[in-house]
């Protein structure tokens, strides 16, 4: 086997594998850090009312209202993508995607809460979550660049803060 062929074999099999291993380690490091960060911020935000009611409870007196939102775009790492591809052959839960969407949902909620706090609202009601797929920049439009998670609701100030 001459040098060129060896190089070819290395490029064909070694490189994708190396990227896979690298993607796994980098991806799970980023994921662990993000979860730690989320737990910390969620603890800080835990006293802040975030409610899915469309109508206010009768005893709440609202001062002012406004739209608040938080959104985030998440993407897959190569490892998750490959495992999900294999999963797609046999079906079943794509477990590698679950932490990703969980992170996206919690991050979007936290951003919404943080923006609502900055605007001086006391609570958020009628909270909704939406996702949309962002198409890849590939010419055939195939594949997914990432998923957007949008959390939005109505920020309200209360006349008497102790109501909430």
């Amino acid at each position, binding site marked *: 086997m001459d040098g060129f062929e060896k190089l070819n*074999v290395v490029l064909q099999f070694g490189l994708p594998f190396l990227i896979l291993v690298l993607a796994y380690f980098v991806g799970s490091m980023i994921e662990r850090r993000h979860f730690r960060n989320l737990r910390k911020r969620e603890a800080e935000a835990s006293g802040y009312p975030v409610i899915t009611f469309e109508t206010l409870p009768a005893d709440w007196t609202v001062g002012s209202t406004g739209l608040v939102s938080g959104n985030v775009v998440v993407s897959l790492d190569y490892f998750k993508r490959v495992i999900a591809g*294999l999963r797609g052959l046999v079906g079943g839960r794509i477990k590698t995607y679950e932490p990703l969407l969980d992170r996206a949902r919690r991050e979007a909620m936290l951003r919404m809460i943080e923006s609502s706090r900055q605007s001086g609202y006391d609570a958020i009601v009628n909270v909704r979550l939406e996702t949309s797929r962002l198409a890849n920049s590939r010419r055939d439009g195939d594949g997914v660049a990432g998923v957007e998670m949008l959390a939005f609701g109505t920020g309200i100030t209360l006349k008497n803060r102790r109501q909430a």
Partner: protein
Amino acid sequence: MRFIPKKVDDSVNVSKEHPLVEAGTLVIGLTLIFAAIAAALILIVDLVLLFVSPEREAAMFSNWLPDGIVAVEEEDKRVVALQALTTRLARHWEDSPYEFRVEISADDDLNAMALPGGLIIVTSGLLDSVESENELAFVLGHEIGHFRNRDHIRALGRGVVLTIFFVAISGGDSVANLSMTISDLTLRGFSRGQEADADKFGLELVYKEYGHVAESWRFFERVGDEDNALIDIAAYLSTHPSPEDRVARMIELAESNGWPVTGPVVESEGY
């Protein structure tokens, strides 16, 4: 109404299973499933082959030339000479159902192929490197040996069936490309047992034609000497025995059959 904050379990939405466990299960499980299906398909091809007679195969593929083979001009005198040599050798296989056709592919690799319908393709690289007609005769005899054992159609059938299989399961994404490459490496060409049988028959043809088997394995000795630099390893050596083993086996074969290993050698002029 009061809002009472509660600590929420933040792990319900994420599976407990470690991603590497999932990856391992999927990779091993799918590999086993693919291997089982591939083995079943290979078996089916071998079964189907029992029902396609060599005569029928020869008729079906009588004018066929695979895509991607750059054939040298038909009037080329090398093709004529090669065809004559093949016909002379094939005469010694008395009940051959094939009418052998020879084409030269303009390719620097050292290779010869047996394809359905009695088509033998020799690369111009191989023609340039042979140093006597006897060497070339053995290469042709070896390919004719594949026809006798019908290895060529077995390999083609497997290749086609496995390609369809891999395209079907994956629709051509990256996972599929990987499995395609692996199947190419492992299943293209013939097994070592098939190669040994073809060597035996090839040597017999050479003996019947020349009365001796001198220089039959010189080609492989030379290739071995040159440290295989000219040979496409993946396509050739992975399925062929190593040149040294092969030469040793051929010498043994010649001795046990009483075929003389020396004799007048014909020049390779004209090939």
